[in-house]
């Protein structure tokens, strides 16, 4: 089965997000006033071939923990969807 995987890698709560803070500080000068709490993360998309949803999910979780993020400073959010065949 083919899955479409979307992973969002974010800073863990409590970890500084200098990029988000810098963007937030610069927005008012561009005329955008109502913006708060800017956070910048990474978004990773791919397709995955796996036997079933459970094994796809556990493989993605493993990938995130070992390679795509560092749990010391980052959290991940995983979205999985059975997709069209490649």
């Amino acid at each position, binding site marked *: 089965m083919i899955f479409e995987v979307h992973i969002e890698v974010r*800073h*863990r*709560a*409590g*970890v*500084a*997000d*200098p990029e988000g803070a*810098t963007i937030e*500080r610069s927005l008012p000068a561009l005329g955008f006033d109502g913006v708060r709490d800017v956070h910048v993360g990474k978004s990773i998309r791919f397709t995955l071939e796996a036997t079933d949803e459970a094994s796809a999910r556990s493989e993605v979780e493993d990938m995130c923990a070992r390679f795509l993020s*560092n749990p*010391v*400073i980052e959290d991940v959010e995983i979205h999985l969807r059975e997709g069209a065949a490649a």
Partner: protein
Amino acid sequence: MTEPLHRSLGLTDDEATEIEKILGRPPVPLELAMYAVMWSEHCSYKSSKIHLKRLPTEAEWVLVGPGENAGVVDVGDGIAAAIRIESHNHPSAIEPYQGAATGVGGILRDIFTMGARPIAIMDPLRFGPLDDARSRWIAEGVVSGISGYGNSVGVPTVGGETVFDATYQGNPLVNVLCLGVLPQDRLVLAQATGAGNLAILLGSTTGRDGIGGASVLASAGFSDDEADADKRPSVQMGDPFEEKRLIEACLELLDAKLVVGIQDLGAAGLSGATSETASRGGMGMDVDVSAVPVREADMEPFEIMTSESQERMLAIVEPPDADRVLEICARWEVQATVIGKVTPPDADGVGWLRILDGFDGEELAKIPADSLHEDCPMYDRPRQAPADLGARRSDDPSSLAAPTDPGADLVGMLTDTTWVSSQYDHMLFLNTVEPPGGDAAVLRLKHPGTGEDTGRGLALTTDGNHRWCAVDPRAGTAQTVAEGMLNLAVVGARPLAVVNCLNFGNPEHPEVMWQLSESIDGMGEACSAFGIPVIGGNVSLYNESRGANIDPSPVIGMLGVIDRLDRRPPGVGLVEGGRLVLLGA
């Protein structure tokens, strides 16, 4: 919880007793947390200080020796050079990029705290073998972290070392050296003088990152949320852009003579910066913990006082100058907040550090300022030569089979470190005469005030050799100093000063203490013999790898001066038909 609070904070029973004696009463948890961070090995040097005292530290040209944020020497023409080396080994083992990046940030602050503009970084690095996947991940992350932070903050990385060895598997060494230059009259010390002067916190907001050991306080009933403690990241994110603005703002404040003293916020955060400035100035300080700009709502005073959030400085300012200070900071988009007031010592000469909830509010802690960094018990830990020392020394190369192809072996041992140095801006400031790849980095010496070229140069080298030191830490360290000398000599430089980073294992193991003590003596003997003062350094202990201590790994940084750049030796380019002459025995 069954364990007494002081123990979970990392303090021994004796240390807790000592604290109670100092205060004449049991400490409140906030006070205990402040002592715990300040009396940690990292901040107090409690296992190494008695040995470090044996190092030669004086010479005519030394303006500031060990003990301040950086050592400073006179390099002529009214110019002084500030230099310091630090380790960021443990953070880099768990988050290589940020660990190394924040290591760069920290050492830069030590330099511009002295009034110097940082002009060069060196990065002696030690990793596990590259065929180990985790070591590779660490090596790549560390190098990108140094590159990401150093390049962006705008300080060139002009040299370093890259060593791969099994002894560092799981415990890499990330040492970072920084050199700065300053007009001699801009030299400032980290002192709070003048009762009524203001302590202004500059730079980043304070967050829950890097609270480390003190986070046990949260589960000890300080916080309602039990799960809170493990939400606190122990690793900080570096923000080179914030640091760049801090550098510019601080140097402008110093040029305008608007600060009495200035101190960076290092490992012990506000606890360290407030108590150190106060006690160096022989004063006390009232700190309004509620005034500190925080990144998250509901931060507890102990979190604010022990947070290791990066890119912060504390400036001591006379009240009439405060407005101009805030103006300059605003221009550089650096947040600046009055958080403290310098107070006179009491009738007994004790300067008190008081932590308050609002200047007129509740008193949350009251500690003799100097007790935090002067009264920590010092240890003369047991020392004993390692049991296998005899075996190490009797390991005789002549018992090995002769290599069949020594040429190939030699070539196989060479590592092309341009993979590392090409990721570093090593040219900024138009100073780099000898880039990474030579025996020592050579920099033009320009006057930091006027930009005028002196025609002279500074030379920098870092050296270490854990194999020598594993066999004989005393001779090995002395040899390392000699290697530094030679590296400077071949670029035509006179050595002026040594800084060192002592990367060792667990000091509670007698053989590690023996190695440390021997190594310090070897460095001291060599430096005395060569007439080079040791003007600063750093001790990193508890470097353990897979249950074993790393080989003793002192790293020496040496600064030299070249009197005429146009007449320095030509370097190692071989010329056809030339003769090779071996000098020395």
